[in-house]
């Protein structure tokens, strides 16, 4: 930018602007993301020593295979929630994509072609959500409650009573394969690539800045030249597309295309995203926190199952964790305010004497 204006020099010395109000370690350490990552590390350490068999490499393999769909969908879901919207239809889209892959393959299409159709269907489904939210101007919570029923209904309607199970061995074993000898499932390769793309998109581009701005104030974003509707549209399409991709993975991993695949997954995804520090009101959140949130729930579930704790306790823990994570955040904020209250007066800077 060129300087269009020079303000006449004032009698006072020029102000010094620090980049940040707090030292770096405080900015990095005292965040929701760091708290979730810390908790994740603690739980892993605790489980490794406290739960028999948890330390074995196979645990990680199963764990990652299990959480892969949640990880994949959590990426675009994070962006959607940061804009202040929500997409409840993702799990239904997983089911629809699974059914499409199934019947198309049954009808003679090779897996890649069937998968491509499913991905396109995902994009179209996402675009329908996006259209209703942006062009028609409806609240996304209401819209996606509707499409949750619609997409699931299409899935169940298309496949009826049956489940398609005759998939090529090649594809089903690819879905479960591991990278070399590492025990890390191959599905992590596309996931890591996508995670990098999404992280860059969200945190290091004007598009990402727009996402945060929309979440904080859609009006102000519009007045700053952010194309709010286009941004939301893109994000809904991405969510639909990645849900469809997760659906393909789901189908191949279990070798079974069914209308009821992944029922209830939407709440798990949203719980993980919120646990990872994304504000449900939009405008706040970071991808590393979300990934840690997904893994935290996954590790806890895996460790507890290994310790023969039943599924109900896992649910209780997931729920309590979610509640605690948000409550503790506001508790800490309250504590900080208390501490910084009147007592800080004497430490306050004396404003520059101007006279």
């Amino acid at each position, binding site marked *: *930018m*060129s*300087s*269009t*204006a*020079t*303000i*006449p020099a*004032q*009698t006072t010395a*020029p*102000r010094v*602007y*620090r*980049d*940040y*109000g707090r030292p770096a370690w405080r900015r990095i350490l005292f965040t929701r993301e760091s708290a979730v990552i810390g908790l994740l590390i603690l739980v892993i350490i605790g489980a490794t020593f406290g739960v028999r068999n948890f330390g074995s490499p196979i645990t990680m393999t199963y764990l990652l295979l299990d959480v892969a769909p949640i990880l994949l969908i959590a990426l675009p879901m994070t962006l959607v929630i940061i804009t202040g919207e929500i997409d409840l239809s993702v799990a239904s889209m997983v089911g629809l994509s699974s059914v499409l892959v199934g019947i198309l393959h049954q009808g003679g299409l090779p897996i890649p072609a069937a998968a491509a159709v499913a991905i396109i269907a995902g994009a179209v489904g996402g675009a329908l959500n996006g259209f209703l939210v942006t062009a028609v101007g409806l609240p996304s919570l209401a819209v996606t409650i509707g499409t949750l029923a619609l997409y699931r209904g299409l899935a169940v309607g298309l496949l009826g009573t049956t489940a398609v199970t005759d998939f090529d061995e090649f594809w089903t074993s690819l879905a479960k394969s591991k990278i070399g000898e590492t025990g890390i499932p191959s599905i992590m390769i596309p996931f890591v690539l996508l995670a990098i793309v999404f992280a*860059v998109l969200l945190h*290091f*581009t*004007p598009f*990402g*800045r727009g996402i*945060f*701005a929309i979440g*904080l*104030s859609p*009006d*102000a*974003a*519009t*007045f*700053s*030249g*952010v*194309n709010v509707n286009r941004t939301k549209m893109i994000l809904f399409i991405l969510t639909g597309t990645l849900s469809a991709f997760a659906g393909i993975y789901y189908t191949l991993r279990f070798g079974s295309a069914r209308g009821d695949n992944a029922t209830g997954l939407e709440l798990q995804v949203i719980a993980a995203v919120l646990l990872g520090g994304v504000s449900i009101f939009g*405008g706040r959140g970071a991808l590393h926190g979300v990934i840690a949130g997904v893994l935290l729930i996954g590790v806890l579930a895996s460790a507890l199952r290994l310790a023969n704790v039943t599924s109900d306790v896992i649910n209780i823990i997931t729920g309590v964790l979610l509640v605690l994570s948000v409550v503790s955040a506001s508790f800490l904020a309250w504590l900080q*305010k208390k501490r*910084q*209250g*009147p007592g*800080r*007066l004497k430490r*306050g*800077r004396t*404003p520059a004497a*101007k*006279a």
Partner: protein
Amino acid sequence: MSITPSTVGPAALELRNVAKSFGAVVALKSASLTVQMNSIHALVGENGAGKSTLVKIVAGLYQRDSGDFLLRGEEVDFSSTAESKAAGIAVIYQEPTLFPDLSVTENIFMGRQPTNRFGKIDRKRMRREVQGLFARLDVRINPDRPAEGLSIADQQIIEIAKAISLDARVLIMDEPTAALSGVEVERLFAVARSLRDEGRALVFISHRFDEVFALCDTITVMRDGEYISTDSIESTTVPEIVRRMVGRDVADLFPKQPAEIGEPVLEVVGLNSAGIFHDVNFTVRAGEIVGLAGLVGAGRSEIARAIFGVDNYDAGTVRIAGTTVPRRNPAAAMSLGLALVPEDRRKQGLVIDATVSRSTTMAIQKQLTKFGLLTSRAENAAARIWASRLEVKTNALDTVVGTLSGGNQQKVVLAKWLATNPRVLIIDEPTRGIDVGTKSEVHRLLSELAGKGLAILMISSELPEVLGMADRVLVMREGRLTAELSRAEATSETVMYAATHASEHHS
């Protein structure tokens, strides 16, 4: 330096050495204010001096850290606004805050609706009272419509009606006239005077000295969270007050320099939007400041929004340097060199929860990227330049803009748009809620920008500002342009006439 007015009985409201800080930000160091019954007391000070904070302490919204707070001679301590209301204090806040989904009537009576024996709200009575109130204030707002979609001015009027209907003994008004035009201001003043004559105490906060001197009896000056002085209004002058507020002399208030007027840059042809504005035609040339005047609600802001592409319009064309600006596409308008400083700073001008750094660079992010990537470092570097150019009062660039004072927020908005290096600047109420020092800086800045060839469309409800700054004045009434006046033709009388009378011929 200060003259304490002789006290007859306890003061209606007295604050002594009140301090308040928000985290590391000290809003008030030692503020004092003594308001007598039967008087209208002005409270003035630069942006960020702590006026609104003091008001909020009186209202019970904030709790003071230290100091004394007396009401009619008695120590009080409010922990909520309900308590202060019960103690007979009514407050008009700086930013109108209504319930958008509720009707105007409900907004006025919320929390204290008249009820019958069974606890059922007496709607008839509520309606009667509102009609009486509106008649007294000569307000023409449908009391049954929802508050949603009301202009800021209408919202402010409802806030005023609400505060008056409280029948309070102390009425505090924090910049109630910032959004109002002359007629409404006069009406408000008439009511304020009659309230004073009934024996109530009023506090009036404003950055407009003509209003302060026309209305108030006593004036208290604050600076940097500290009490400076209290005088009776007859014994002081505007330059004296300004010197105390700013700590130095302020020169010419409206220093528009003559500039070379060039080619037309912004051309608006036949712009029409059903129900909002009709057949709007005008041009703005390079180096020219065109003032757009009119009563509140005339539809000026809507034209600005339509030109910039935030709102759609039914017909017409907008061109910048010959190129047609596409509809409903602010990004395209920006890339053609259009900038808009909108009227509602907190909702439109700024992402109020974003940092100073991000807010300042919001409109130039694309230029700051390297290989499509944007880093905080690049943003901070750019933001630092603009923050220091406009003297934004903040200590760190990651301060949330919402915590800055109103004037400093306005500076950030200006910085954001000046950073884009625009060809056309549309600026809606450029100095609303800005103190004298900053105001003269803004005016100097606009004048200089025009001198460098920028085309400026300035929408303002402040007549002196329009007359002082504009090379040409357009006047609007009810969605139509009613007059185009040259600088020589434009006087308070000609502008006001055009703003209140339909034009004989359409231009």
